[in-house]
């Protein structure tokens, strides 16, 4: 066997190591998907808090203030640190690592998603809201019937992008000893004293997944744009 074949064999074939990469990928995707769902739920709540209507004579609601502080803190601190804080301080007694990491990324992602949703709602022409209100519809009815259905089209593509970013960001869970794709690759490289094959292999797997998701997202965007012209 030549040298490259040996390296490939050591990195992927021997002891069924390729299985480890797929297990790692499973952890990566599990964290990303759960975090994505948590992020969307939190993002919706925070966006609505930010858009809540202040009482007469007030500039903002208490909800607005809470939401703004949350977004500021999340955006103003590194995601790795948020993860370490969740792991070693908030949930130090938990033994479900994947769930703690998902929660940490979900809370992080929620801040970014909330800004996407807020922008998507504000991008719907204000005149339509005024028309709805002028007919006697309540604020809630106008939101539900007119604004949100149009806002969803604005927010789906950027939320898809946020999810793609999330998949890559989960690569830091190695800091709290979770065996995601990145950590598996790095462990195998230290065991075989050979970095090239495992690291490039992991990179290729990330790339293919993200490329596929990006293509799907572009197709979705094209469809949404078409339905705008109906």
């Amino acid at each position, binding site marked *: 066997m030549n040298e490259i074949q040996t390296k490939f064999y050591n990195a992927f074939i021997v002891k069924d190591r390729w299985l480890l990469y797929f297990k790692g990928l499973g952890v990566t995707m599990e964290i990303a998907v759960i975090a994505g769902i948590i992020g969307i739920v939190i993002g919706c709540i925070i966006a609505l808090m930010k858009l809540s209507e202040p009482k*007469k004579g007030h500039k903002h609601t208490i909800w607005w203030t809470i939401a703004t502080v949350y977004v500021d803190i999340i955006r103003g601190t590194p995601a790795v640190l948020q993860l370490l804080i969740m792991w070693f301080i908030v949930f130090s007694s938990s033994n479900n690592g994947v769930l703690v990491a998902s929660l940490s990324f979900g809370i992080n992602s929620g801040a970014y998603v909330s800004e996407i949703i807020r922008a998507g709602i504000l991008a719907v*022409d204000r*005149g*339509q809201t*005024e*028309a*709805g*209100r*002028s*007919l*006697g*519809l*309540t604020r809630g*009815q106008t939101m539900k*019937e*007119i604004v949100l*259905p*149009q806002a969803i089209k604005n927010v789906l593509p950027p939320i898809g992008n946020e999810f793609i970013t999330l998949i890559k960001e989960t690569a830091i869970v190695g800091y709290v000893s979770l065996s995601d794709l990145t950590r598996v690759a790095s462990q195998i490289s230290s065991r075989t004293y050979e970095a090239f094959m495992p690291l490039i292999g992991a990179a290729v797997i990330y790339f293919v997944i993200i490329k596929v998701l990006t293509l799907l997202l572009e197709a979705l965007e094209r469809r949404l744009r078409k339905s*705008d*012209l*109906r």
Partner: protein
Amino acid sequence: MISVKNLCKQFDTTKVLDNISTDIEKGDKVAIIGPSGSGKSTFLRCLNLLEEPSKGEIWFEGQLITDPNVNINKIREKMGMVFQNFNLFANKTVLDNITLAPVKLGLMSKSEATDKAMELLTRVNLRDKAYVYPASLSGGQKQRIAIVRSLAMNPDVMLFDEPTSALDPEMVGEVLEVIKGLAETGMTMVIVTHEMGFAREVSNRVMFIDEGIIMEENTPDKLFNDPQSKRLKEFLSKVL
């Protein structure tokens, strides 16, 4: 029907409406003219509280609607409003645009609302557009449908804010025809407009608003033929 007492509106530090008082009676057709930025839209939007007055009282059908305890949504059901930019709901078909409010607010069943919408669409010659989305309509068609959408609520008064200002010139006529037709039915109307000929023809009263006050108010004949204030004379010489 509508009684405005000492209405003031301020945006932060800029005073836009300065102590306006007037009465609009049932069946009145009031045209509001004046230079751009003088507060015409703000005045109209205060009438249905799309803008919140800073001071003053607005009474509608015997109710003080500037009272914070009034359910403004109920009041708005009786006050139709037509906007310069149509503001049709982009995610709904023409028919759904028209039936949404009466059905959601429990005023009509779905089938009653549909019948009413079809009858109104026939009146403005747009019955064949019932199932299309607004994006495929011309400006004149959009505005006629916006008018129908308001009428479907059976309002007691209609507020128009420059209903033809965003239209290509060849479409102005079709919209003005619909408004004239509506005037003939006896509808109470307040119309902000730059179409002086139209104002003269349909209104029984014209208000000239300038710098946030009603500078002059009269029958169309007197106001256009015998303007009193210097500002109105200047304004008319520019627009006529």
